[in-house]
């Protein structure tokens, strides 16, 4: 029963900071990030990998944290939306989403930002089709995606110009 489940110690680097925690083996990565670490920018929308609101980067690759266990991230390097900005200075993706009105309610935004970040880390100059494919696993119910795509293109241009990561 719930109180008898043995806990497992894990160590994860999140946004450049190291965390050691004892967790239930069934604890989902998204719940670890939100509840154990208090990083509530990562959201839950479907618990089934479809909507992408929970997208984070694990060792540089995008994952749906709602369908991964926290213990699977043991020893890994995690990036969440909270790690994007450099202090007060927004990441070019964050800036572009705002500039292009690529968000409305903002619930899907953290996941979309992380998927886009993963895309741009592999492909600094994606065309529209490549962007659409890269965010196909991220649902947005507000924007109709058009301004999201424009935002990713703008961010890519900015990052190429600045030589940013």
């Amino acid at each position, binding site marked *: 029963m719930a109180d008898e489940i043995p806990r497992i110690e894990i160590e994860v680097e999140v946004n450049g900071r190291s965390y050691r925690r004892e967790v239930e083996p069934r604890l989902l990565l998204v719940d670890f990030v939100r509840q154990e670490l208090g990083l509530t920018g990562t959201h839950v929308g*479907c*618990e089934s990998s479809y909507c992408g609101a929970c997208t984070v980067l694990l060792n540089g690759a995008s994952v749906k944290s709602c369908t991964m266990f926290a213990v699977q991230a043991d020893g890994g390097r995690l990036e969440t939306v909270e790690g994007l900005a450099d202090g007060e200075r927004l990441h070019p993706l964050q800036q572009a989403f705002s500039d292009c009105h690529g968000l409305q309610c903002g619930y899907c935004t953290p996941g979309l*930002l992380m998927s886009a970040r993963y895309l741009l880390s592999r492909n600094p100059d994606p065309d*529209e089709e490549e962007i659409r494919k890269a965010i*196909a*696993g991220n649902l947005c*119910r507000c924007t109709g*995606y*058009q301004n999201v795509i424009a935002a990713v293109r703008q961010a890519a241009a900015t990052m190429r110009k600045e030589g940013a990561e």
Partner: protein
Amino acid sequence: MTPPGGDKKWVGKPLRRKEDDRLVRGRGKFVDDYEMAGMRYLHFVRSPFGHARIRGIDASAAENLPGVEAVLTGAELAETVQPFMQIGPDPGAKLLDYPMAVGKVRYQGEPVAAVIAASRMVAEDAAELVEVDYEPLPAVIDAETALLDETLLHEEAGTNAIYGDRFEWGEVDRAFEEAATVVSIGRLHFHRFSSTPLENNGVVCRWEPDGKIYFVCNNSFPTFGIQFLAPALGVALEQIHVQTHDIGGSFGIKITNYPQMAVCALASRRVGGRPVKWVETRTEHLQGSGHGNERTYLDTRVALDADGVITAISSRHLDDCGAYLRYEPLGCVIWSQVVCATYRLRNLRIDFQQLVTNKCPTAPNRGYSRLQHLWFMERVLDICGHRLGIPADEMRLRNYVRPDEMPYTTPNGCVYDSGDYPAMLARAKELIGWDTWRAKQREAREAGRWVGIGIGTTLDSGTNNFGQSRILNRFLPFSGNSEAANIKIDIDGQIVVSLGSVPQGQGHETTTAQVVAEELGIHPDRVRVRTGFNTEWNTYTGHSGTYASQFAVTGLSAVHGAVGKLKKELARLAAFRLGCGEDQLSFEEGEEGPCLKGPGDASVNYWGLANLVNVNNAELPQELRELTLNCRYIYVPPFEVPDVEKKYGNLTLTYAAQLHVAVVEVDRRTCQARILDYAVVDDCGTVINPVVVEGQVHGAAAHGIGAALYETCAYDPEGNLMTSTFSDYCPITAINMPSLRCANMQTPSPFSFNGAKGMGEGGGAPLHALSAALQDALLSEGVIVGDSHNPPDAIFQTLRGMRPSPRVEVERRGA
């Protein structure tokens, strides 16, 4: 043409949103982000059956699980609460609607018990241990079967037809007698779908020992919800406090989460007033939150004159509202805000009935009740046009209300404030390259391809007159509309605005700041607009909320009124401080912040004036001590109570319009419809922020395209929801959403101070345009599109005659 407000500094400009900074940083605050000391978690035990009697519930194993504090059952809850108030007349008024199932379950996913535990995981574990003994009953899953009353959902009502009435205007029989052509159309059907906000429903509640009930939630019309909650819980309205912060979309669906709010309140009381959190899963949301209304149209007859102008329509409409009336039967009258759509016909007879079925209760989903009617009207127009050989664009031009007729009074007394539908059509044709596409279509058809072009014209009626509810139930003490805003200058000179609206992505903080900045001659960054809704701000009326496309009118009118009051106070104070006349003052951005400038170099900033009122009032003369710099304003639109006998009156203040043109190709092998091109023209009067408006246009288009081609809440005959995950429901993604060509036109509303019209709902134009385009594509195959949902399997079945096209008969009279 210079757009109205072209001389403005902030209004009408594409200002970046104030909301964005926190949201792109992941620092928004949504319900599930709230954690409180001592918080407990609630998880529902839900019915796996669409319709069943509850023989008994054994919660002992769950109660014995360590960490579980309580299990509440529907029967137990019914002993302490009153059933929810019913809006409609008998027989619907006889329904007993409790926050959880009592005695029977009536839809799959209906809550039968609630487990409260120390963690969400323990609550979920325990819910699996609750044994419910069900006796399955036959499920009623469509309106036409419900009408037979062979199986009753609510025995106390005695029928599944909870509302029915005839809506008739003009001289229908005479119009049919005089018609040159009469077209009869068989069964049409508007399917069930939901805008499925990405954030599920959620509530945090604590029922404190002093009797106060605090909710942090994402209900999008809390002033409506608390009017249901208070009597059900047996408390005074004053005891209920509701706060929202960031909301991850609602689209109307979150208006009806008040039953779950009630359960959370009772759960908190049950566990000694500790805070209780409930957050829905996606499957719970799809099965048990709210769906859009489904509608079936039978026995439709259309009278036309010799020129193809529609002169009369008679029809029978069955609205399927699911198992309970959580916002209904309001949808039984709201469609009549747009009874004649964008057309000039004066004679209509609609027999309207609403039926309960063993499906999720409906909620007022984006475009609520109007889009179902507008889709019907667009189908009628296109079916008649096709059968009479009149092209879709020409058919519309012959039938549109003309711009020189605006403001136009409809047959039921609604007043279309402004609009130029022929100009919108011309603009949309230009945008999409109409003639080029027609040429390409001819070539494609010659090559054996199924390519079609469709037009959808739609209305987004905004700022509704609650008096229309009396057409359903003459005894309802509701009418008019109102919205509140408060603006104050804080002790330190900061401008603070609070609103009665409940935004979920519409950018109210930004557009409010634009209006305030414009009127005070300052920068919008100077204006702090509080996030969300909070009853404790006292900035609300009984109509407050975010629904029915109204913020640009009701919300901003309230802001405008509050700023007007504030400016009078500021001017009186500044005139005293500067020793000049009020008429010598101007509102400006000064070197020391927002200020009033007097003659010469004299000026006083807001801090100086707020200081006088708040902490330095001994300096004030007696006649100025009544000033507070804390100004509340209630906007009341100019409505009258409708004539309930004639069902006649002005039901909404503004009528935004959208015109969509879609080009589609149906793949001959897969029957998949692919959008080749898509154009949207919107007219919502004077635009406050073009970026925000464009965002709403895109979003509404995505919902409509998704619904037309992919999204459906489909039930099997036993009442199992077949689309209870996103993988089955298939919300539209970036892969299947086309690029839109958009244009904006502005015919200012004469009825709002700023010329704006509410516009967030969009009116479901893609459903109209895609049904039309598919019919155009498949006309050679003899297909008449009779359903609003056209995924590949449905098109395949239609082409094979497994899903017959509606029967259409044309009767030509005389010479």
